[in-house]
C-alpha cells in the first residue's frame, strides 16, 4: 500500500475535520465534486455542512474565513489554483495578515494554494506565489515537499493560531508516493536536511527538492556529495539549519521554481551572505525560473524552470569555483 501527496492533503483535512468541530473547508467545487484535484473527495459526505462550495469570489472567500476565525472557527480555504489567489490578495495580506497585530485577535486560517508548474498549464495555472505572500508580515508560508510533510504540516497549519499560506505543489499530487504518512517529526518553521553531503549545499523547497535530489544523485557519480536542504517553511525561514549546512560545505546553490526577481532564493542568499559570509568558499548561486510568464508548451516550460540538468550544470560551476 502507498499514499500520494494528494491523499495526504485529503487525509489531513479529514483528520482536521474529524478532530475539531470548528474546522470547515470552503472553496470552489470542493463539496460533492471533491475539488478540481479531488483534494476533498468524499469529505462533504462525511462532514455535512462543513465542506462547502464557494461562489467564484476569492476576495469574499478569504474575508469570510477571517470573520469565521474571529468567531472561533478554523477555516481551510482551497483556492482552485494558487494563481487565482491574486484576486483574494488584498484580504490575505491586509485583512488576515494584520488582524493579530492590529487587534490582538488570532486569525487561525489555512489557505491552500495548489501551486507550481505542470506541463501544458500555462501562465495562469502554474504560478508559485510563496515569495509574494512571504514579503508581508503576519503570514506563515509553508511549502511541503514530501507526502509526510503534506500531511503533518497541513494538520499543524490548521492548529496554528496564525494565517497559513499552504503551498502544495500540483506536480507532486499524483506522482509523489510514500509508504505511509510517517511520524510527526519536525515542527513548523524547521528545515530538514533531505540529503547529507559535504561538497556543496542546495537549499530548495517544494517540488524542486526532488529535482535537487536527483541532481545530487547525478553529481555523486562525479564524486561529489551534495547536501540538500528542504526549507519546508519559507517563512519563518530556518536560518540556523541553512547556516549549519553551509558551514559544512562552504558552497551554496539556492533553487526555486518561482520568478527570479527577489523571492525565496534572494532571501536565502541574503541571509547566508550577511550572516555567514566567511563560511562561503565560493560565491553563492541561485537558480530560478526565467523572467517571463510560465509558458504553456512543454518544450518551453521545461526550459523555463530549473530542471535536474540545469541544477547539475549550476552545481558543476559552483564546485569548479
Amino acid at each position, binding site marked *: 500500500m502507498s499514499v500520494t501527496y494528494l491523499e495526504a492533503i485529503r487525509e489531513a483535512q479529514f483528520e482536521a475535520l474529524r478532530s475539531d468541530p470548528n474546522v470547515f473547508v470552503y472553496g470552489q467545487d470542493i463539496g460533492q465534486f471533491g475539488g478540481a484535484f479531488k483534494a476533498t473527495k468524499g469529505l462533504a459526505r462525511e462532514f455535512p455542512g462543513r465542506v462547502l462550495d464557494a461562489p467564484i469570489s476569492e476576495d*469574499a472567500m478569504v474575508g469570510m474565513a*477571517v*470573520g469565521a476565525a474571529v468567531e472561533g472557527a478554523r477555516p481551510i480555504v482551497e483556492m482552485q489554483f494558487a494563481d487565482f489567489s491574486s484576486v483574494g490578495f488584498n484580504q490575505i495580506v491586509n*485583512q488576515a495578515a494584520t488582524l493579530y497585530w492590529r487587534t490582538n485577535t488570532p486569525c487561525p486560517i489555512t489557505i491552500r494554494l495548489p501551486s507550481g508548474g505542470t506541463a501544458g498549464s500555462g501562465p495562469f495555472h502554474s504560478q508559485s506565489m510563496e515569495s509574494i505572500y512571504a514579503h508581508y508580515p503576519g503570514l506563515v508560508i509553508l511549502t511541503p515537499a514530501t507526502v509526510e510533510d503534506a500531511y503533518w504540516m497541513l494538520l499543524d497549519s490548521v492548529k496554528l493560531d496564525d494565517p497559513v499560506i499552504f503551498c502544495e505543489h500540483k506536480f507532486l499530487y499524483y506522482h509523489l508516493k510514500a509508504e505511509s504518512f510517517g511520524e510527526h517529526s519536525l515542527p*513548523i518553521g524547521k528545515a530538514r536536511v533531505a540529503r547529507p553531503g559535504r561538497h556543496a549545499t542546495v537549499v530548495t523547497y517544494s517540488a524542486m527538492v526532488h529535482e535537487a535530489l536527483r541532481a545530487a544523485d547525478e553529481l555523486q557519480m562525479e564524486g561529489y556529495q551534495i547536501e540538500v536542504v528542504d526549507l519546508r517553511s519559507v517563512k*519563518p525561514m530556518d536560518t540556523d539549519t541553512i547556516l549549519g549546512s553551509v558551514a559544512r560545505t562552504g558552497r551554496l546553490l539556492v533553487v526555486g521554481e518561482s520568478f527570479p526577481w527577489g523571492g525565496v532564493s534572494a532571501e536565502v542568499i541574503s541571509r547566508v551572505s550577511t550572516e555567514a559570509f566567511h563560511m562561503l568558499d565560493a560565491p553563492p548561486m541561485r537558480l530560478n525560473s526565467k523572467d517571463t510568464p510560465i509558458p504553456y508548451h512543454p518544450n518551453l516550460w521545461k526550459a523555463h524552470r530549473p530542471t535536474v540538468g540545469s541544477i547539475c550544470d549550476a552545481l558543476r560551476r559552483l564546485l569548479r569555483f
Partner: protein
Amino acid sequence: MTPAVPITCTKADLTPDFRDQYLATYRQMQSSRVLEEKLGSLYRAGGRIVGGVYLGRGQEAFSASVAMQLRRGQDVYAPLIRDQAGRMAFGEPITDALRTYMGAATGPMRGRDGNIHRGRPQEGEMAMISHLGAMVSVVAGALFAKRLRGTIADAVGATSIGDGATSTGSFHEAINMAAVEKLPIIISVANNQFAYSTSNDRQFACEDLIYRARGYGVAGWKVDGTDLAACLKVARSAVAAARAGGGPQLIVGTMLRLGGHGEHDDAAYIPDEVKFSKVGQDCLLVAEKFMIAEGWATKAEIDAWLKEARATVDQAVSLVSKEPIPDPYRESWQALSSSELVESWQL
C-alpha cells in the same frame, strides 16, 4: 418589486416603545456629535490627534438606528468610516475612540492603528481595514461560524458601506456570498451623495442603489437617512427580518455628510443646491424638531442632555490626555500570535 419610494413613519408606528428607543437613539447621536466636534477641534488645535480625523456628522440617525438594534455580546458589528454614532449605540466606549485617535498605548489599537480603524473583534466589534468593501465578507464569516458552531441563536451582523464603496468588487462578492448562505446580515448603504469628491453620477448609473437588492436576491429597504423616525422604523424591521431568518437585508439611506471627507477637506465640491436641499438636512435638528413636536422632549431637556454629553466627553479627553503613548522599546514587534514562529534574528 422593491419600491424606490422611501419608507416613512406613520402615527401608528409611534408606540411608547418606539418613542423610548427614539429618545435613546437621539442621545447616542447627540453624544456622537459632541465627541466628533471635540475630535475636530483637537485636530484643528494640533498636537494631540495623530493623523487625520474622519467624522460622521449628518449620518448619525442612519448609523445609530441599526446599531441600536444590536445586542453586544451576541451580534456582530463592523462599523465604517462614518459610524461614530453607531459605535456608541453598540456600546463602544468614548475612550476607545479617543485613545485610538490620540494613539494612546492603552487603547484597543495600542497606537498601532488609528482613527476609525478601531474595534474589538473578540467582543463582536470588527476593526475595519481601509480597503473599502472588505469588511462585509468578514461579518458574513463571523455569522457563518456562529451558525456552524451552533452559537447563532437569533444573532445578526451589521455593517455599513458608502455609496462609493458599492463599486468595489469586494462588496459585490460578499453580499452575493451572504445571500447564497442566507446569512442574517444587515448591510447599510449610506448614500451621502459623494465618495470623497466624487458624486454619484461618476460612481454608478442606476436610478437607485436599492435596485441592487433584487439582483442579489436580498431584501431591500430605502429610507431618508436624515429622518430618525424613518431610519428607526426601517432598522427595526430589517433587523427583525434578519433575526427571523429572512437572510441579508440591504438598507439604502440618503443623506449628506455635513463636513469634509476628513477634517482636512472643506468639501468645496459639494454644490450649495445639494447642501441646502432636503438631503442636506441635519438629522439631529430634524430629530429635535420631531421630539418637540411629538411632545417627547422639551428644548430644555435636550439642552441638559447636551451638557451631560459634553461633560462626559471633556472628562474622557482629560483622562486619555494623561495616558501613555506607545514606547517603541517595549513594543513586541511581532506580527504572529505564535511567538515560537517569530524570527528571533534581525529580519
